[in-house]
C-alpha cells in the first residue's frame, strides 16, 4: 500500500499537503487496510455495513483512490483498453488503429474491445469488463457520461468524440465547425435547396447544429420537406433508403448534406440510379473523410475531423491521469477540415 503514501510527497521527502492514504481510511473505519482495498476495488464478501463504514471514513478523510497506485498494487502492466462500438464504420476502425499506435508510442500496450451496445460501453467505462487494463479510451456510440450517475470509474477514462462529457476527460470533435464549413461551401457554390440526409439519432448533435447554423447565417430556414433519414443509422443502406424516399416525394433540391460518408455513398448510388448527375444536378457531401470517400466516383467532398489531433489529445490526457494528475475533468476541442472533391462541383 506504500504507493499511496508517496503520492503527496515532494522529491526531498517532505510532506506537501499530504494526501490521505488508504491507511488513514483504515484507521478511521477501524478495519484493516486490506478491507479498505477490498471495498475500493468493489470485491465481493464484504458486508454492506462494512462497505458503508469504509465509504463514510473515506469521505471524512477526503480519500480518493489513486488509480496509478492501484495499478501497481494489483500488479497491472500498463495495458489500456481501447473501446469502440463497432469496426464496420471506417471511422471507428481508423480511430481504434490510431489510438493503439499512439498509446504504444507512449510505451503502453493496448487491448481493443468492441462494445456493441450502451450496456457494454458502460461496463467498459466503469471497469467491470476492463479489469485487465489500467485505463480506458472510449469512442462512444450510445454512451453518455451522465449514465455513470456519479459513480467513479475504476480507472482513468478518456472519451474521444461523442457528446461533451462533464465528468470525464473528453476530446470534442470539431463537428459543428466542420458541418458549418461544408454547408457554407455548398451555399458559396450557389446551391440553395439543401437536402439534409441524417442518421435519425442525432439531430441534437453539434454536427446537425452546424448545418442549421450555417443555413441561418444566410437567412435560410431548414425546410422539413428536405430532411430525410433511413431506418437505422450510419450505414450506406440508410443513405440509399433515405434518398430513395426523398426522390419519391418529388421535392426539388440541388445538394445533399449527409451525416457521414457512409450515408453519402448510399445517397450517391440512389441519385445515379435515378438519373441524377453528381454534381451537375445534385452536389453531395459527407463527413469523416474515409478512404472510401477519396475513391468514390466521383470522389466525395467530406470533412476530416483531424483524427491525429483527437488521438494526440486523448493520449496526452490519459497519460497525465496515469502519471497521477487528479484534477477535474477536462475537455479538448479539436478542429475540422473540409476536403473539397468533385462531388460538390469543384
Amino acid at each position, binding site marked *: 500500500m506504500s504507493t499511496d503514501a508517496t503520492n503527496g510527497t515532494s522529491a526531498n521527502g517532505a510532506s506537501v499537503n499530504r494526501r490521505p492514504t488508504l491507511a488513514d481510511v483504515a484507521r478511521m473505519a477501524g478495519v484493516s487496510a486490506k478491507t479498505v482495498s477490498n471495498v475500493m476495488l*468493489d470485491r*465481493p464478501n464484504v458486508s454492506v455495513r462494512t462497505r458503508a463504514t469504509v465509504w463514510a471514513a473515506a469521505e471524512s478523510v477526503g480519500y480518493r483512490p489513486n488509480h496509478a497506485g492501484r495499478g501497481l498494487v494489483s500488479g497491472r502492466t500498463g495495458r489500456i483498453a481501447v473501446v469502440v462500438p*463497432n*469496426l*464496420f464504420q*471506417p471511422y471507428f*476502425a*481508423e480511430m*481504434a*488503429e490510431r489510438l*493503439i*499506435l499512439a498509446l504504444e508510442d507512449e510505451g503502453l500496450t493496448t*487491448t*481493443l*474491445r*468492441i462494445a*456493441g451496445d450502451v*450496456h*457494454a460501453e*458502460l*461496463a467498459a467505462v*466503469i471497469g*467491470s*469488463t476492463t*479489469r*485487465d487494463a489500467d485505463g480506458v479510451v472510449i469512442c462512444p456510440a450510445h454512451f453518455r457520461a451522465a*449514465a455513470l*450517475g456519479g*459513480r467513479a470509474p475504476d480507472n482513468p477514462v478518456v472519451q474521444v468524440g461523442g457528446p461533451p462529457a462533464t465528468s470525464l476527460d473528453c476530446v470534442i470533435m470539431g463537428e459543428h465547425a466542420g458541418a458549418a464549413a461544408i454547408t457554407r461551401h455548398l451555399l458559396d457554390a450557389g446551391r440553395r435547396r439543401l437536402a439534409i440526409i441524417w442518421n435519425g439519432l442525432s439531430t441534437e448533435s453539434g454536427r446537425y447544429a452546424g448545418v442549421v447554423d450555417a443555413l441561418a447565417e444566410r437567412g435560410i430556414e431548414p425546410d422539413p420537406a428536405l430532411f430525410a433519414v433511413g431506418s437505422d443509422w450510419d*450505414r*450506406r*443502406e440508410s443513405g*440509399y433508403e433515405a434518398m430513395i424516399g426523398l426522390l419519391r416525394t418529388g421535392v426539388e433540391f440541388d445538394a445533399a448534406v449527409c451525416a457521414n460518408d457512409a450515408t453519402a*455513398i*448510399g445517397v*450517391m*448510388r440512389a441519385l*445515379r*440510379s435515378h438519373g441524377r448527375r453528381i454534381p451537375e444536378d445534385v452536389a453531395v457531401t459527407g463527413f469523416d473523410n474515409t*478512404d*472510401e470517400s*477519396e*475513391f*468514390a*466516383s466521383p*470522389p466525395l467532398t467530406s470533412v476530416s475531423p483531424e483524427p491525429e489531433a483527437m488521438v494526440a489529445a486523448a493520449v496526452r490526457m490519459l497519460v497525465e491521469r496515469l502519471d497521477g494528475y487528479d484534477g477535474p475533468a477536462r475537455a479538448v476541442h479539436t478542429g475540422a477540415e473540409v476536403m473539397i472533391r468533385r462531388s460538390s462541383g469543384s
Partner: protein
Amino acid sequence: MPATMKEVATRAGVSLKTVSRVVNREPHIRPETMARVEAAIAELGWTPNPSARNLRTGRTGNVGIVVAELRRPYLAMLVEALVHEAGRLGLTATVEPTHRRPGRVSDVLGARGHLYDGVLLIDPEGLEPDTWGGSPQPVVVVQGGRWRAQVDRVDEDVVEAAGLVARHLGLMARTRPVLLGPDRARSAVDHEDLSAVLRAALAAVGIETAAVPRISLGGVGDRRAGARAAEAALRVRPDLDALLCVNDEVATGALSYLADQGIAVPDDVAIIGYDNLADGQFTTPTLTTVDPSPARLARAALELLTERLRGGAPAGPRQITVPVTLVRRESTMGMP
C-alpha cells in the same frame, strides 16, 4: 469470481425473476426497473448466458484475436464477426493488432493461459511464428493462406472461388484477364505467381493461362494500390478485358481509375473483387465479388476453439473449409 444472477438481483433490488425478464427482453417492465437491472449487470460484469458458465469454469472467458490491422475493411468485418460469435458463446474477445511487428504474434500466443483461454489468428501476412509454444490452450488460424501451421484452421474454399470466378469470366466471354495483387488460391505448394488451382480453373474455360499477367501491389492492398495497379495492368496488357482483384478495396480503386480514364466498366473491362464489402453494392457500377462468408468462418473458428476448450477434440490439427458464393453484379454483367 464471475458475478451471479443473484448478485445482480440483490444489487438492483429486484427478484431473480425480474432479472430474467429484463435479460429476455420480456414486455411490461417499467423502464426504471430495466435501467436498474441493466446498470447492475454492467457494474457486476455479469454474463447472462448459462452455456457461458460451463465454458468459463476456471478460465478467463476471454479469447485473443490477432489481426494485422483494422483499417482494412474486410479484416475489420472478420474481426467483428469473430467477436460477435465469441459473445454468442459467452466469451469476451480482445483484439490484438500486430501492425506487422515481429514478435507480436508470439507475445499473444505466450499470453494463453493467463489473459486468454485461446487465440484466433487471422493471417498476419508473413508473421507466421517460428514456434507455436507448448501451451495446451488452443489456437485456431483463420484464413491462413500460405501458412503451413500444424494447428486447427478455418479457410474459405479457394478452389471453389477460383472455379466460380473462371466460369463467370467464361460465360461473360472474357478471355484476357489480368490479376491485380496476389492470387487468393496460392498455397504453400505453389511457387508460380498463379496457383495451380487458378490455372486449372482458367484453362477449363479456354483461357490461355501463360498469357495472364499479375500486377504486384507493392504493399498494402488498399484503394490507392488498386488504382495504381489498374494503370500498370493497362500498360502491361493494353487489350485486357477483365481485372481479377485480390480484394474489393483494390477493385474499387481500379474502378475509380478506369472511371477517371473514361474506360467503360464492364463494356470495355470487367472487374471482379473478393470479400463482398458493403461498398461494392453502392459503387457505380456495383461490384461483382466473391463472398468468403466471414460469419460462417467465425462460427467454424469458434466451434473448433470451444471444442478444444471442452477437451472434446482429437489431438491432431483439424481443418474446416467454408463454401463461398459469387455475388454477380454490374461490374461484369452491366446494368439490367
